[in-house]
């Protein structure tokens, strides 16, 4: 393991670390400034909602059927569950949206009526209707893979936007914008 180049003047090799770092730099520049579509953008955007008709998830709100989304008014469809912590975290934002006159319908995933009722009692109830999706079948059919997720649905029942994860306070105006776009 002697160094054969011990006496040689090091040539281009000394620039190699810098070159490697330059490669790293370009890579992370790309990562940092690429457009903000970090989420998997849904393949369902621009497509109509699949057919579904869900039983009520709780006693005091009606269940949810796809026909409700074809009344000409854009709505939000919120996928949530009583056992999901981020869903509780986003409840003030949903309340803020509801207070602005947005109609929000919910689908509760793999939940029990008593748990949903308790969740709504604790975190507020911004929903017009809540369907129960016991086997995640509707959730998967509309291209959602987790909770919470929120969809913007236009007046013809077409999916316009999918928000993955909880809605943060800074997302509220963006969601309102998407609803406005869906209404026009």
């Amino acid at each position, binding site marked *: 393991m002697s160094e054969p180049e*011990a006496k040689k003047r090091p040539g281009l090799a*000394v620039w190699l670390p*810098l070159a490697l770092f*330059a490669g*790293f*730099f370009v*890579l992370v520049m*790309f*990562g*940092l400034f690429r457009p903000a579509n970090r989420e998997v953008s849904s393949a369902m955007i621009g497509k109509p909602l699949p057919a579904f008709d869900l039983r009520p998830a709780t006693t005091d709100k009606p269940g949810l059927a796809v026909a409700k989304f074809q009344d000409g008014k854009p709505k939000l469809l919120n996928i949530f569950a009583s056992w999901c912590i981020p869903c509780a975290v986003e409840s003030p934002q949903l309340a803020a949206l509801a207070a602005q006159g947005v109609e929000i319908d919910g689908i509760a995933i793999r939940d029990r009526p008593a748990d949903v009722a308790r969740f709504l009692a604790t975190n507020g109830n911004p929903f017009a209707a809540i369907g129960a999706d016991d086997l995640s079948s509707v959730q998967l059919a509309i291209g959602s893979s987790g909770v919470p997720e929120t969809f913007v649905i236009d007046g013809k029942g077409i999916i316009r936007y999918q928000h993955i994860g909880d809605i943060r306070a800074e997302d509220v105006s963006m969601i309102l914008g998407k609803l406005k776009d869906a209404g026009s």
Partner: protein
Amino acid sequence: MIAEIGLAMLWMAAALALLQLFAGALALRPGGTALIPVVRPLAMMQGLLVAAAFASLITLFLTTDLSVKLVAENSHSLKPFIFKLAGTWGNHEGSMLMWVTIMGLGGGFVALVERRLREDTLIATLAGQAFVSLGFYAFLLLASNPFARLPEPAPEGQGLNPLLQDVGLAFHPPTLYVGYVGLSIAFSFAIGALVTRDVGPAFARAMRPWVLGAWIFLTLGITAGSYWAYYTLGWGGWWFWDPVENASLMPWLAATALLHSASVLAARNALRAWTVMLGVVAFSMSMIGTFLVRSGILTSVHAFAVDPTRGSFILSLLAIYIGGALALFALRASTVTEGARFAPVSREAALVFNNVMLCGILGIVLVGTLYPLLTEAFGQKVSVGPPYFNPVAAIFVLPMIVVMFVGPLLRWREDKAARVTAPVAIPAVVAAFVLFVLVLAEPQMKLLPTLGLGAAAGLAVASVIPLFGRNLRRTPLPTYGMVVAHFGIAVALAGIASDSAFSTEKLAAVNVGDSQQVGPWTIALTGIEPIAGQNWTALQANLSASYAGGAPVALQPQARSFSSPPGQRTESALKTRWNGQLYTVLGEEAEDGRWQLRLWWKPFVPLIWLGGALVALGGALSLLGRVIRDVTRLRAESKIAWRRERQGR
């Protein structure tokens, strides 16, 4: 008021760093010698000021001053004291302030005690340290001010992420940061020596204790972090190849390589350019790791907040410091000739092999960490995990361990293989014997754990062989340090291999009153009860576990719910025996009233962290030996100087 004072001190520290940089740069020019005496005091003052700024932030957190934005967002008046303290660095701004504080104190400490280094190289080093600090001061003051006030004081704080509400948070980040940022000293040393063309044995001897100090903390931090992940995350795993874990491993690998190559440079004046480059690379890895985790560019459990502005700020700092240092290296490396030659069978050759292997591991970890980013550039989302890292790392680790059998026994410059055949044969026979027994007794065992156990047994023996035939009293402490550290690697490797080979896992839904079997343990669920803590409530399972029919011991795993902010965390319960650990986690309640329990029996798993602690202890022994030697030498020198002065009169 305290917030304003803290901010003012931070600005003043930054101003002093600027002065330190200019004074240092001017002092190195011809005719600038008048400035030499001011550089050391500037560095010390800067360290004290930034430490005072950090102390102000700690005070704000301890008193829960809710008019400060950072406190309101990350603390809560009801939090226990220790988490109020730890909350200071459990967030982005606070941890960056801790970062510059350690950097400032490190520079100040160098200015205070470093006497070995040539004066001009020391000045260049301190100027380099100030230059690096300045970027992070700018980042804090311009993009992440920790002292910002709210327009209206908040009525109550938002609290700390429940995952972080653990005693580990009080110790793990500061330890790790001392390690990360301590490497900035090696970085500045490398820059200083490149600037003054002073890369030689004296430089290596001066740099080594600083690297060693940082490396000890890094080793402890990684070990503690691994144990923290093990018992908090409740998955029974101890290393997940998460980007943030890789971010701590990469500087450690570079620093380990640097320690070994510095000893070649110190003893034999060889590997000059290589050592200087490792000095640059080690801290670069700290910065890259921090950037990758903080910018949110890679998804990690440790990302505080995804913020592209901050990301691009840190990225520019990386470009300036790493790019600049590597460019300086490329320009100056040709004037740093490689130095003394050595034979293929020699201590140097073994250390070069070790360096190549460590850098190989570093390379594969870096590639694995960045690979998701790379494929994303081509439109694919992938995640890289243990199936890649484990076998590929083993390709480098196993040969390195075999060379560790031999390396410490070889002489410098040139040696005969025949001379070390006998002492190497002992560990080789032990390793072969263990492999043989394992293959006979456990034929279904996987390849890597088998090889790992064999290598660990061999290394455990090989690591103490350098002590044979020596006068143990006169053996220098650094030699003991090496022995203990290498033995620690063997211990950790044994733990890793036996965890992956012998762990048994049981997921079960259990009625109260029923029991389950995992490994030699019988575990009965005797009850479930609610428990309340200072800022959490929990469901607690009362388990009664008995090892091979012995006396039962109580375990109480909990599922905790935190209210501010809302969150949940499992609190695993562990029972450690000399031959392994029982690991229990309480899951959710099933539909029919049964409770989910996750149970693991992990033979010899505590060896992993014991090994890590031994490695750190080895480093500490070595550092202690070197410090004692330096102090004795300085005393002797000052005595001689004093005598001369007296005789001169």
